[in-house]
């Protein structure tokens, strides 16, 4: 998958985590890695960039494991940005589903029709 496209999706995932609650760095990373193969697409630079663009602010909070943790909190500006990305994504993915499912979802049916067509020619 195109790296820039994937980065955009991961950005939306980071925003989706923080829209629900304030989180610390590793919490966000482990939440995303649970469901996604993040791999080379590093999350920390995204957190850093969105913070510098005022989409997030940070604060420190003591943890039970010693050193205080840096928490990320979404700003109003970040929320508006999240909404716009979300809308763009929904429209895009809706379009994709529409196109790829126009022949139905059953692979056997698709294969059957494909075979019929190939045999005719």
């Amino acid at each position, binding site marked *: 998958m195109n790296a820039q496209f994937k980065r955009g999706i991961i950005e939306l995932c980071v925003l989706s985590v923080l829209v629900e609650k304030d989180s*610390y760095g*590793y919490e966000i*990373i482990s939440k995303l890695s649970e469901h996604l193969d993040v*791999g080379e697409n*590093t999350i*920390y*630079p995204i957190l*850093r960039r969105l913070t510098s663009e005022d989409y997030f602010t940070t604060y420190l909070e003591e943890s039970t494991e010693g050193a205080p*943790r*840096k928490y990320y909190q979404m700003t109003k500006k970040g929320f508006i940005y999240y909404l716009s990305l979300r809308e763009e994504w929904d429209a895009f993915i809706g379009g994709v589903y529409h196109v790829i499912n126009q022949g139905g979802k059953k692979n056997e049916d698709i294969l059957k029709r494909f075979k019929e067509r190939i045999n005719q020619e």
Partner: protein
Amino acid sequence: MKTFLNDLKNELIKNKVDMEEIAEIIHDHEEMIATAMAEGLTEEEIPARFGDPKILARELAEQSRKQTNPIEKDGYTLWKSFTPDEKTLHVFIQVVAENVAVQPSEDDDIHVYYQGKGKVDRYEISYHKGTFKLEAPKTLGLLFMRSSSDDLDFLVEFPQSLDIQEIKQHGVSSDVKYQNLKSEKLIINTTSGDLSIQTSQFTYVKVNTVSGDLLFTDVKMGDLDASQVSGDLKIERSKIEGNIHSSTVSGDIEINDTEANDVEFSAVSGDVNGCEFYPKTIKFKSVSGDMNLTNKESREIKVIKNSSLSGSINIHS
């Protein structure tokens, strides 16, 4: 953990990230990795979770360069760039007092630069499906309420590979400068802003100003429709394949080294002066304005209608 952090630090130094930023990045990673290991992540798993230090450092360095060393051009600072998603382009610019210069970009992207003390973040800018928009914040209010902190000028660049369908610009006192552009339509409304267009090509141009002056130099146009009150109109070394329709109250019109088809001037007290100006036909409607044409070649110029009250028409060739 130490290896990862050391590698990351060395890579950041290699990528010339400043020390203060490196300290912050390393500190953040110390905290995140400590949490990760407390949750059972092993040393070997660190790069898989946090990324290859080389790639991570390069990405962070690229980001910080963008923030700390803004790209400059002719005294302007780069604000936004867009990669075109369609071959055609529609442009809408709505400003108040901000001067706007438009020219081709040197690459295949759209670039917007700014200059001045105003807060550029308050401006709405977007590019989506072949439509570019730049709008001044509506909360700025009226012109006389503006402070010097609203002072801002823009330089907008469009790739030459794009087929520009229309450019619509609305301003109040903003001066406009277009050069080396090609567009189907150009529509400009302004109150007191001046307009200068150089070496460009348009199929249709419509300009409305009150006191703004218009200057066209080396412009190829289909039709030109200009409406002014006290602003002057000057056209030099241009070719108008269609018709000129120009109306003014007290502004003067000067046209040099220019060819045109049918021309219609209507003025109240403004004069029309031309040198090497060769239209096919002229309609001149005026109350007290004069028209003087001085041409070297004696090509036929038909004067269709002369409804000047006290003015006169002179064609010397």
